[in-house]
Every structure is written in C-alpha cells, then in structure tokens.
C-alpha cells in the first residue's frame, strides 16, 4: 500500500469510525430482524441493508489491511447473500451466528486498535460454525421474466440482488410498474424520502434508473424511471404517491409467455407515454468504451459473456422513449457555464475564517507601521512598512471579494421553483395568472438562497390567494382578466431587495384593523392610533388572516408570521405597501452576504459591540434637548423627521456605573424603511470581521447575529440590527402600539 505520509493516521481513524458505526448499525438491524423473524414478516430491505453493511465492512477492511476483519466479512457476506437471495432460511441457528459475529467485530476492531488480544481462535470457531449452517439448495432458475413485457435492456443494469427481488416479487404474484418522475435536484433528498415513505405500503421499489437526459444542460432536474412491484392498481399508486408529473405504467404480462427478442434492437414494445409531447430524439450513436486496458483485467472476467447480447451498450439506445422531458420542461432554468465546481460551503467558511485572522494580522502590521513612522530613528523603515501594508491590504481585499464572489449564486433557480409552484396552484384552482420575473440574475449568498424559497413561496401563494380577484370581479372593475404577480429582484448597496407584487384588490387598512379588533389582536382604542403601515404590519401577527373565507391555500392564518420570522433570521426585513383596488407589494430586504462584514465597533458600558455598517446611516453626538417623549418612547427630531431612540443599555440589561453626565452617541440604523437610533457610549472605529455563529446553548438569545474576534483575543458581539429594530419598533403583540413610525408627530 502506498505511503500516504502524515495523513495516514487520519485515514485510519476514518476507517475505525466508519467500521464501528457499521458494526453498531448491524447490531441494531439484527435486533430488528430477530423480532420480525419471530412474527414471520421479515423485511427484505432490512436483510439487504445487513448484507450491504457487511459488504462495506469487507471492502474497507481490505483497503486498510485489517485481514481478520475482511476474512470474517467475506464468509458473513456469503451467508447474508444466501439469505437475501432466498437460498438460506433465517433460522434461530443462523441468527445466533450473526449475533456472535457482531460481537466478534467489536473485538476485532479493538484488536486492530491494539486494545485487545488477537481474536484468531474465536474467528476460526465462528467460521467453522458458518460452514455447518450453510448448505444452500441450488434450485435451477427458470426465466420467469419472459412472462413480462419488459425491456430486455433493463436487466443489464440490475444487480444480482435487484434481479432476485424482482423475481421473488413476481413469484409472489405482484404486478410490475414503471414509474416516471421528475425531481428537482435542489429538493432531491426530501422528494426521494417522501416517495420511499409513500411507496413502502404499496409494494417494493426494485430500482431507480436515471433516465437519459434529453437536455444535458438541465442542471435542475433529474428524471427517474422506477421499477416497482405492487399489488395495487395503477390509479391507487398514482393517488397514493401524488407527485406532480408522475406517470405510472403497468408492465403487461405476455400472452402465452413468449420469450423476449434476443437479438437486435427490439421495437419499442414497452410503450411509455410521451410526456409533454416533446419531439423524439434521433438515436444517439454510442461508441464502445473508449479504451479497455486488457492487462488490467484478469482472464476470468476479461471477456465477460453477458447473458443477453441485447444488454450491450449501443444495441438499444434508451430504456425510455426519447423526448421524455416532463411537462415542466418549459419551466426549466437557463443553462449555465459547463465549467463549474461544487464546493462545500463549509470549506469557504474555513477560508473566510483564515481571512479574518489575516485581517487581524494586517491591522497589527498597520499599527506597527504607524508607530515606526512616528518615531525619529525608524521613520524610513516605517514608510516602507506602511507601503507594504497598503499593498497587503489591497490584495487581501481582492481575495476577500474573490471568496465572497464564489459564495454568490443567482436567484434564478429559486424564481424558477416559484414559477413552477405558482403554475401548479393556478391549475389546481383553474384561475389563470401571469408571472412576470425580473432580476433573476441578481446574486446573493448561497446560505441565504437556501432559506429563501419557502418564505417566497408563501408570499407568492398569498398574492395569488388574497391578492388576485376572481375573474368576474376583475372584469367588473375593468382590469385585465388575467391577474399578474411580479417577482422583482435587484441589488441596492449591500442589500438585495426582492419584491412580490400583484395587481389584485389591494389591502384596505380599515378592513385589516376591523378584522384585528374582531379577532382580539388589538382593542378599539388602540386602533384609533394606527397608521396604514401599522395596519399592514398586523398581517404578520401570528394567527391573523384578512380574508373572510379561509381557503386551504395560504390563508390558514399561518404563513406571513412565519415568513417574517424566517426572513429576520437571515438578517432581513419584510415590508408591505398597498393601494386599495390597485395591488399590493411585499418587499424583502436582505444582506448580500452573511460571511464577512464591515462593522462599526462601539463601546457600551465598557464592552465592545459590532454594528454591521451596511445598516448604519450615520452617527452623531446625542443632545437630550432635542428629544421629546412620545407615548413613553424617546423620539429625536432630525431634519424634520422623528427618529425613535433605543437605550441599548436598558434593552440589553447591562449593568453600569451611575450614568449621570455621560456623553452618548446616537448610531442611526436602518432596515428597509424603518430607522432607529441606538445610544452608545463611544465609537471605536470600523473593522472587517468574520462573523461566527453563537453556540447552540445561546440559540434562544435574541439581538445578536453572532460574534467576531477583534484581535488580542477580544471577542465582540455583533448586533442583529433587524432583530433589535423589530423588537423595539414592532415588538410583540402587547407592545404593538409602541411604534413611532417616521413622519409622525
């Protein structure tokens, strides 16, 4: 084995941890199986899982030179193979052996680590017991598959086990089905999980075949051809799985059991429906494997004789008719460059952390340069160092931008998903709607994008359900028959703005307020004080719904409050503007990136805090004489506008000495269209920081988006401006009227 140098102990550790994990899992599976054996309802999936566990153990043991382990695994694999192939019954004796084997695995692992004696004799004893229980009967295999009108090319891609499962399902009288589905790669894991869960009670999925793509620049979707055995009728499978675009086709039994054609490309005797009516593709010319290095293939398998010639590549170009792109084909996103690499975002985070450390070094060098320049005897040296420092700073900045750029992804795929979603509900409710999209090329941090599609979908549904009027109503007021929902995105400074706009009935503040009073969200006397904007904010209160008839779409009273929570978790804010009879616009304002940020360091009661500069408008000396008290809130008049003031000391419950006669600064922060003045003791300066999340035990603490190192081991909390603004200005229901919106009073 090659010498891998310093990394090899890491790799060995990887081996131990994976092996132990597998052995533990095997022990658990065995316990499950024991129960099912007693009730004679053994799940073939569990047996197969055990087989695969041992198979993997054998594989990795071989690679890492754990010979005891690979030897035993080899025998165990044979036994489990016999069991899963139905050649060996799972008797009590076999079960006991398997339990002993699991026990022995742990022992072997300890031995390999050097923590236990060599279990050589125990293994020998177990292997001899193996020999006694395994006498599989070699029943001749009849070709049961010929009964089915199955594409012979299909068999070429079944593993031996899959073929066995197929056979045993046919033998127990189940029918076969081909399922065609199209999944978005973005949600593949959950879609698959969902499919498996729903399919389990219906029967057994034999295999998933990725369908050859008709559009190879399709980055978004994966089309699958699924072979399934089930007792249920087609319609039940369709309704139980209920997947958009799913096509279920029964595989017909041949009359008289004629064998399938053995040579030449068979005619399309498994007629799958053409979905979406895409034009059929010319048969691709398939070249054989490019190069086959004979010397690498031992004689025994060098010239494999495939059981059916027709399973050779090229003899049949597709398992499915060409042009099988799903109905959503027209909604597929734009193609992107072919030369992309997928990078784990954690790797970028690591780079960012290193960059943060470098930024700290940079400022230390800068301070040193300044000190030298200030001294008489080192002035020249200081000048040189200063120039070097400037160059360093510039390159560091470029590198930072470069890494940030890599984290950026376009909003396009999210918008495409919204488009598909809107299309689905529009069809479901037979209400046509136009969707206009602009700015899909706008880029935003990948981490933000991942969290964005759910809240946006809620907003789009909300626009469709509550915004767009029924056809008759639209005609009555002279609007175009088909309503329009617009999605607009654009960058604005360090923020990305996403608007969801509709040309529907708009939101009437009076109706919202009336509804809120009826629901007990606010009292009659409170309502007198409310501006239109205050009223719109009511729709974000949990449990609030403005539509009289609650449909099963978005108007379940949950939704917009969740949207608000999700968006503020990303450091963003949602705002509503609306004109009755004309339409509603919801605006999300989000930071472009979550990774590295430029902050203003402020001091508060002797502690340092960081405020993201992207949210800071200005900072000035606080003059108590210019403030007034409005409904218990301090408000400052600034250039003819009122700015509500927040005493952070009080809000954060910070202890301090007597604060009589202290000089304060006001830092004006803005999120969306809301502004707030934060009172701080001192302004320390600006700095680029790498923001790190607070630990899990601090999850519940509101008001901070993380913390960052400032150098000299000092750590400063980063103020979550959106959360503070939210807490102070909107607050929870009880403090709803504490809002002192701009332009009031």
């Amino acid at each position, binding site marked *: 084995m090659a010498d891998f140098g310093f990394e090899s102990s890491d790799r060995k550790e990887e081996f131990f941890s994976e092996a132990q994990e597998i052995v533990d899992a095997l022990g658990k599976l065995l316990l499950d199986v024991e129960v099912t054996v007693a009730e004679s309802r053994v799940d073939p999936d569990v047996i197969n899982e055990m087989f695969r566990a041992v198979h993997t153990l054998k*594989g990795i043991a071989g690679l890492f030179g754990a010979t005891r382990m690979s030897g035993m695994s080899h025998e165990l694999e044979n036994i489990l193979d016999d069991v899963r192939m139905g050649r060996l019954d799972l008797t009590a004796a076999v079960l006991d052996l398997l339990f002993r084997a699991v026990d022995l695995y742990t022992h072997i692992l300890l031995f390999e680590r050097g923590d236990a004696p060599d279990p050589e004799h125990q293994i020998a004893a177990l292997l001899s017991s193996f020999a006694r229980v395994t006498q599989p009967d070699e029943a001749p295999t009849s070709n049961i598959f010929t009964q089915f009108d199955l594409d012979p090319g299909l068999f070429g891609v079944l593993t031996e086990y899959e073929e066995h499962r197929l056979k045993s399902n046919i033998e127990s009288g189940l029918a076969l089905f081909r399922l065609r589905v199209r999944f978005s790669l973005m949600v593949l894991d959950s879609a698959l999980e969902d499919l498996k869960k729903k399919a389990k009670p219906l029967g057994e999925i034999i295999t998933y075949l990725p369908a050859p793509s008709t559009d190879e620049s399709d980055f978004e979707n994966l089309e699958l051809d699924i072979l399934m055995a089930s007792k249920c009728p087609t319609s039940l499978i369709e309704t139980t799985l209920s997947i958009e675009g799913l096509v279920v086709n029964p595989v017909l039994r041949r009359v008289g059991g004629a064998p399938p054609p053995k040579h030449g490309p068979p005619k399309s005797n498994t007629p799958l429906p053409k979905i979406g009516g895409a034009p059929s593709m010319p048969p691709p010319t398939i070249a054989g494997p490019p190069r086959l290095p004979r010397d690498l293939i031992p004689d025994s398998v060098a010239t494999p004789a495939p059981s059916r010639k027709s399973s050779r590549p090229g003899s049949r170009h597709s398992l499915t008719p060409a042009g099988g792109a799903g109905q959503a084909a027209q909604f597929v996103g734009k193609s992107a460059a072919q030369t992309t690499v*997928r990078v784990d975002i954690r790797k970028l985070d690591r780079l960012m952390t290193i960059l943060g450390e470098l930024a700290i070094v940079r400022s230390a060098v800068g301070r040193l340069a300044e000190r030298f320049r200030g001294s008489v005897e080192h002035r020249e040296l200081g000048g040189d160092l200063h120039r070097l420092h400037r160059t360093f700073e510039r390159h560091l900045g470029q590198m930072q931008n470069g890494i940030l750029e890599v984290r950026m992804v376009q909003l396009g795929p999210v918008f495409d998903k919204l488009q598909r979603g809107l299309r689905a509900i529009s069809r479901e409710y037979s209400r046509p709607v136009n969707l206009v999209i602009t700015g899909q090329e706008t880029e935003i941090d990948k981490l933000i994008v991942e969290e964005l599609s759910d809240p946006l979908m809620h907003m789009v549904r909300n626009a469709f359900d509550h915004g767009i009027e029924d056809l008759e109503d639209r005609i009555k007021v002279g609007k175009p028959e088909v309503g329009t929902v617009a999605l607009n995105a654009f960058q604005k400074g360090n923020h990305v703005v996403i608007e969801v706009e509709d040309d529907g009935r708009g939101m009437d503040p009076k109706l919202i307020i009336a509804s809120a009073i009826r629901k007990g969200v606010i009292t009659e006397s409170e309502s007198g004080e409310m501006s239109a904007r205050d009223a719109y904010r009511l729709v974000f209160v949990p449990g609030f719904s403005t539509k009289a008839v609650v449909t099963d779409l978005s108007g379940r009273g949950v939704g917009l409050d969740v949207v608000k929570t999700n968006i503020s978790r990303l450091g963003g804010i949602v705002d509503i503007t609306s004109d009755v009879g004309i339409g509603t616009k919801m605006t999300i304002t989000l930071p472009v990136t979550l990774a590295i940020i430029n902050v203003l360091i402020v001091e508060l009661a002797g502690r340092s805090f960081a405020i993201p500069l992207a949210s800071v408008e200005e900072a000035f000396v606080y003059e108590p004489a210019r403030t007034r008290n409005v409904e218990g809130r301090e408000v400052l008049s600034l250039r003819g506008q009122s700015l509500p003031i927040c005493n952070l000391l009080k809000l954060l419950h910070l202890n301090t000495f007597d604060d009589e006669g202290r000089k304060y600064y006001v830092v004006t922060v803005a999120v969306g269209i809301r502004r707030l003045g934060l009172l701080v003791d001192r302004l320390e300066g600006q700095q680029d920081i790498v923001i790190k999340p607070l630990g899990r035990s601090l999850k519940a603490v509101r008001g901070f988006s993380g913390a960052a190192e400032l150098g000299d081991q000092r750590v400063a909390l980063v103020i979550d401006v959106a959360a503070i603004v939210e807490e102070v200005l909107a607050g929870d229901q009880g403090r709803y009227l504490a809002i002192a919106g701009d332009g009031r009073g």
Partner: protein
Amino acid sequence: MRRVLIVEDSNAVRTFVRGALEDEDFQRAVGGFDVIEAASGFEAMAQFPRGTFACIVTDINMGDINGLEIVNFVRKSEAHRLTPIVIISTQSSERDIARGLALGASAYLTKPFSAEALQACVRSFVAPDEG
C-alpha cells in the same frame, strides 16, 4: 483543471480512493486533476450536468441508483459517453462486474485493491501522453 469523479457510498473507501488519486507524485505523473466525490448514485447524477470528467471511478453495490445504472447512464449521455469508467467492487459480485463491463465500463478493480493498482488503472486513462 480536469476532474475525476468517485462514486462510492463508503466514506472510508472514498477517503482511500481520494488519497490514492491525490498523491502528489501520482498527480505530477498524470498531469494533475481534481477529485470530486459523490456519496450516492443520486449525488453523481447531480454532478453530471455540471461538467465533464477525465475518468469516473464507481462502486456497484449502492442503494437506490446502483453503479450499473451509472455506467448505463454515462454511456448513453451525449456529454459523457466517452468517459472512461473504472468499477470497484468485491470479488463476490463477479456477475455484477461482468454486467458492468458489458454495459461499457472500461476496467474494474476488486476490493481490496492497493493504492498502486488504482493509480495504475486510472493512469492508463488520464495520462497526458495517452490522451
């Protein structure tokens, strides 16, 4: 940069294969490439639209989408059909290996294999002078 795709559901085997392929001397000898990992057939499917590979190394016995289906898919794909494929599997699945070769896999290695054997095999497909 050229890329080699590993499709394998065992972390340890993937780590081993990556280690062997990223070995400095080996990389220098073959002219360098990046190693991309896929922990399942589905992850591999997600990789295929994103660019081509100098070579694909795949396990056979994987859940859901198995290695044979990957070979089949690759050979039918316009963009990837010429990509060399190396199957890695255990000896006991001889029949599956035979099927893989029948479907158009370029070579196979039975587990356990040495890093050198893997390197020699991959080298025969990606060495610059043979390109």
